[in-house]
């Protein structure tokens, strides 16, 4: 049972890591527009090679 406080700390650290990841996503602008990405689905690349091409042209 003594391990519980330790596990809690570990749990908090992991959860904290997710919180940090959330902030990163937030600052990256992923939460700015939650409507348009849904509309882009039909245009999404359908195969892996399409994805590769799309990523390359984006560069």
């Amino acid at each position, binding site marked *: 049972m003594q391990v*519980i*406080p330790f596990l*809690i700390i570990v*749990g*908090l650290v992991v*959860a*904290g890591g997710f*919180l940090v990841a*959330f*902030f990163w996503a*937030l*600052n990256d602008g992923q*939460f*700015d*527009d939650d*409507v*348009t990405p849904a*509309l*882009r689905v*039909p*245009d999404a690349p359908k195969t892996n090679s399409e994805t590769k091409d799309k990523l390359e042209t984006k560069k």
Partner: protein
Amino acid sequence: MSEESCPTSLNSDRRNSGKHKYDTLSGIAKWEYLDRDDFYDKYVRQVEEGGLVQFFIPGIGCASCVSLLERLPEKNSAVIRSEVNFANKQLTVTFDKNKLPLSQLAAWLEELGYTPEFQEKTTDEKKTSRRSLIARLAVAGFAFGNIMLLAFSDYLGGEDFDLSGFKDVFGPISLFLSIPVVLYSGSVYFKSAWNALRAGVLNIDVPVALGIATLFIRSTMDVVQNGGMGYFDSLAGLVFFLLIGKWYQTKTYDDLNYERDYKSWFPINVMKQNADDSLSSTPISDLSTGDIIRIHHGEIVPADALLLSGIGLLDKSFTTGESNPEEINEGEEIEAGGRQLGGAIVLRVVRPVEQSQLTSLWNSEAFSKNSDRSIKDPIDRISKHFTLAVLLIAFGTLLFWLYKDSSIAWQAFTSTLIVACPCALALSLPFTYGSVLRLLGREGAYLKNTMVVERMARVEHLVFDKTGTLTPSKDFELEFDYFEKSFVSKQMKSAISTLANQSAHPMSRAIVRFWTGSTYEATEFSEKVGAGVEGTIGEFKIQIGSEKWIGAQGIYPDTISKTDGDFQISYVFVKVNDKHAGRFSFAKPIREGVDEELKALKEFYSLHLLSGDSNSEREIFGKWFDDNAMHFEQTPEEKRKYISAIQNQKGTPLVAMVGDGLNDAAALKSSDLGVAVVDDLYAFSPSSDLILDARSLKKWGGMMQFARAAQNTVYILFGISFLYNAIGLSFAIQGLLTPVIAAILMPISSMTVVGVALLRTRITWSGLLKN
């Protein structure tokens, strides 16, 4: 916006038919001013890859619009990136200005069917405040979840389980997790309460801030002194739920910006004639008295100006509501805001944009909403008194116990504050009215803020404008009866349309729209006012006019101007080369469904009609309006006075003005509820409280009923909230309130309030939709 009207689907039709339709100044010329350095700098931000510009494109309507616009880089290598924000109808483009000037980019977008508008305000601060709210919400949620997990042990711990060791750890951990909740997430409330107190007011955030602070301090003391767990779970939960309410509210308001800049009504630039007679595109804000400008067909006169040459024919329908254009002679002054029909005219600016008549009318102190009449939000009043009462009870309890048995004193004080926390109050408004705003928005009614719901619920008088509100502003129903079908050829139709094109009479304009393709120039043209027009187009000698003038008595069946139901039908006859060709029938109907709506509204409200048009339609409208409640040929000032007169009646009833047109802007502002009826949501938003899609006008009664139901919902929620508070307080002031009960009561009351709010709103809404 339906898919049928989406430019992308129209585009394919256009490509197939080979037709191109350009308005007024076509192509590049209209956008030339964008290449000037000062404009470019105003709109374009320099980033690494090139210039970044943001457009507002009302034409964006569906997913295929998104798809098309985001493919611009594929079509032109000068465009590096193109991103659509669908909710705000914005397009953000990164481009290389050397390869593609901004003017060409804009012209290209227009050609595609997505005419861009430029917004002078950047929305960066909106973005950061939005992100900051989400960040605070995330922190509060994170803390809430984790603290709750730890708190379970405290709730559920039985006797045979020795938790003392853990409390020493869980307490400090909870405290640690709560610090960011108080200092970061909850800081909004502290700032708001502080500002209110500095202004000497008690707002709803004051007890909230006090509650948060007290919870935190008391819990900290509990942990530090008694080795307990404190109430950090309640604290984090409280802040979390409050922020959800705030986020929901912000999301609802995001959709529409109401305070549209008046200048965006006008073309941002005009053709200015320079000293050397050359023409240059000039922004209207740069116009000064004495400047010579050219206004083309269809353009709006941007400033009060003197007519130097050309025929002035001004459509003032959105300033006076009068659909018949006004003729202006050379040497006379033209007011800003009219739309020029007919040829190009040359004007000299008399008064720059700031001072022109309409802006001063609009900005006039006399027309800003009279603050005496602003509804003292009853909920605001209640919460003010409530706050005061709670504070009094809390401090009273504190003093009482300090005197009687000081060990209980602080417990009684803080638990009183906690349990009486009007968080339920704070939540009931945003959740209820936020739902109302969203649901109404789906039905085509867009409210400025939650206070509008209150006003909607309490209005007693409805004042309607006629043209553009009860009747559509453009779509005359037009039909053509052939005298002999084979006589009228396609070229003849174009010729007839061309002849009509010379005239500015609204019926002529309707004919031009009806039969497009006027290609011939008129070699002769004369208009006989009140009779008709005649002229020669190519090989045709055409006359369009009244029955008497054309000599068409008795030739066509039923050729009497008649009233058919709710329409007034009038006829105009056509003769080509002295032979009868046919007749046009015009019907100006009331908007669909509105006649029934008016009938229904008459039962509950006092209805009034104010119109800038002539008296001719008094009889038709007598069906729904009392004769003494109808007034025609009204000027904006008269409309405003009329509304004031009603407001000053006994009982100071609330008056709603339902109107259209900039001229109604003054009346809209002076009324207690200004409703702007629009056909095209983005082309028109004057300063009003509510923007109503014209197609939803027939649902107006139901919407007001819904607002009333929402107001009742809020009162019910207050009742529930008070109930919780009463029960809790009765325990708290006796010092009997244990932390568990306080902890349980608060989130339960919040959740009950939210649940009832959403549930009742949905039920009343679906009940109303069924009618």
